[in-house]
């Protein structure tokens, strides 16, 4: 097993498994900065995954597929945002409802189009290409680690920087942080709190939808029933563990990716497949406890150092 963990194969598997979670993790960072508990990422991802497949299958154009997919995910994000922000619906219930809609609704659409209920393998949908980076790919070891991934995996890592920049360096990011931390203060200087949160949720939904696209147009070659299988939630867990910091969140998504990768190969090490499937969830649980315990212990020390600094 150790051999596997130090193999190139494993690194590839981590990135492949980690990509959708990384997208959701970044989406969740923006949601968290705007102080909205959005759990509707599963629904957004499923619709985006299906939209991408349908768009690309009927147009035979990857860009059209991507746009249709992203729009499908955005519609769910917009419904979420509208209900939560304008109709005061509880975010948890809205998320729950939209995830239900995502699992059931996508199957409905699949059936409508193909007459089948399980997947869209009968549709000739497209996949995002694998990128071999010139020059870099020829560097020994590093080249084979960095090059050769799906296009969207690169987008996912670039997204970490984009999200960091958006949140901490742009005017929109400043406003998102302001409405998230103190909506009344933001409103008192004329910032439209709902609109700002709405925009944040749309951006968040857009990023999560990219994760959905990856599922059906990269990770797998077609859409299958409930294919996100809780990844939307794991991404939220990663954000939670990373306390809203994009970089730390990224590290956690990769840890989840790794545990999934180990899980997937567990059978070859004679571990039951159910154990393998359980891995990422169990690790998240343990991680939450460990971090919770550590935070509790560090709280005083942390606060002491803060207050010392602020006194100076």
């Amino acid at each position, binding site marked *: 097993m150790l051999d596997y963990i130090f193999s190139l194969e494993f690194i590839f598997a981590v990135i492949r498994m980690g990509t959708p979670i990384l997208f959701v993790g970044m989406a969740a960072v923006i949601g968290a900065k705007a102080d909205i*508990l959005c*759990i509707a990422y599963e629904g957004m991802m499923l619709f985006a995954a299906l939209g991408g497949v349908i768009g690309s299958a009927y147009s035979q154009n990857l860009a059209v597929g991507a746009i249709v997919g992203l729009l499908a995910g955005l519609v769910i994000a917009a*419904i979420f945002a509208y*209900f939560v922000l*304008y*109709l*005061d*619906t*509880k975010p*948890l*219930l*809205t998320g*729950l*409802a*939209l995830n*239900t*809609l995502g*699992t*059931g*609704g996508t*199957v*409905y659409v699949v*059936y*409508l189009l193909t007459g089948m*209920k399980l997947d869209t393998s009968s549709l000739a949908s497209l996949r995002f290409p694998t990128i071999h980076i010139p020059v870099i790919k020829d560097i020994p070891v590093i080249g084979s680690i960095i090059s050769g991934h799906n296009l969207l995996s690169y987008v996912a890592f670039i997204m970490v920087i984009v999200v960091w920049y958006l949140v901490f360096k742009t005017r929109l990011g400043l406003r998102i942080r302001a409405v998230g931390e103190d909506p009344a203060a933001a409103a008192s200087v004329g910032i439209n709190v709902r609109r700002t949160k709405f925009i944040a949720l749309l951006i968040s939904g857009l990023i999560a939808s990219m994760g959905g696209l990856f599922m059906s147009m990269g990770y797998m070659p077609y859409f299958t029933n409930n294919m996100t299988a*809780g990844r939307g*939630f794991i991404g*939220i*867990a990663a954000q*939670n563990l990373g306390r809203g910091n994009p970089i730390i969140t990224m590290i956690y998504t990769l840890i989840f990716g790794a545990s999934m990768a180990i899980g997937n190969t567990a059978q070859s090490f004679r571990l*039951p497949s*159910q*154990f393998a*499937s*359980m891995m990422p*969830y*169990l690790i*998240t*649980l343990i991680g*939450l*406890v460990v971090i*919770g*315990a550590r*935070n*509790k212990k560090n709280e005083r020390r942390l606060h002491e150092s803060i207050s010392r600094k602020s006194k100076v």
Partner: protein
Amino acid sequence: MNKTHKVITTKQIETRFSIIRTLLAVAIALVFAFFLMATVSDNILKDFTTLLIGPLASSSRMTTVISKMIPLLFTGVAVALVYSAGQINIAAEGAFFAGAVAATVVALIEGIPAPIHIILTLLAGAITGAIVMGIPAIMHVKYNVVTIVSALMMNYVALYGGLYVILNPLRDPSAGFEASFSFQRSAILPTLFGNNRLHIGLLIGFAVVILSSILLYNRPFGYEIRTVGQNQKFANYSGISVNKTIVLTSLLSGAIAGMGGTVETLGNYSRFVYSGFTNHGWDGIMLAVLCRNNPKAIPFAALFLAYIKTSADALNLTSSIPPEIISVIQAIIIIFIAAERFLANWEHKKIVANSQRALAIEKGE
């Protein structure tokens, strides 16, 4: 003289509007379903009629409605209780599944006389369910872990852990499909009214509804649950142990959901057959929301949900409409009922008008 414009309390107006909102949500969902079905249906009028009154078409279907209602009574009450304590613990799904698994384990043991065997399976289901929902609660009070995330993860752990037990040590290789060995006869729930689809789970379910309702509104612990759910700081300041209340409520809620899994499995099947989530826990959330966490209302909402689920099955048999239409209907209902400001402007106008009337009367007197 009759007063044509009676002044009523703000609370009465709010109650009226919550009823209007519920009815309107159902109506909107049905209208939406109609158009959605029209895209697939060859005969939309016939199919929509099936959706509306299909379950009433035969006594067998009506039995199905009642039978589908049974597990919902359990998960609905389970979620209503834990939500009453203000805990967004969505591990009822996992508790239900784990309860079914634990019941299976006990149901395979030979040589226990019938009534005791049934009690033991229920106990096993309850304890396992309690553990599944209790862990996120304990993680929350001890380590301040966000319950919704841990409860979600717990669902998957319960699912795959349960499947491991069923499909490895307990798998019946001769079954021809992925399933456990057959239950002992002594563990199977007795039927009611000589109907083989209605089992005593129905009675247990109603008992759970009644007992929970009494607990919540007439027992001191129920008052603690509701007070913690409404305002934790106030509860703490008043001398109620918030953490204890949260953990106990979650354990109780998990036990009820676990019992639901037990009853559903041992009442309807001869071996463990699930290969994934059953969705009963998620349905429980919807029911609790519909009933605003009041256990007394759960049977009505459960009946309604069982009814549309049966409609969906009927549609599946008689038309080309996939039963997933039901999740769309559910999603729409849940979202509109939960939308606090849906119709709020109208409600606000009513309240304002009412206050102005009260003012006018006050001045007139």
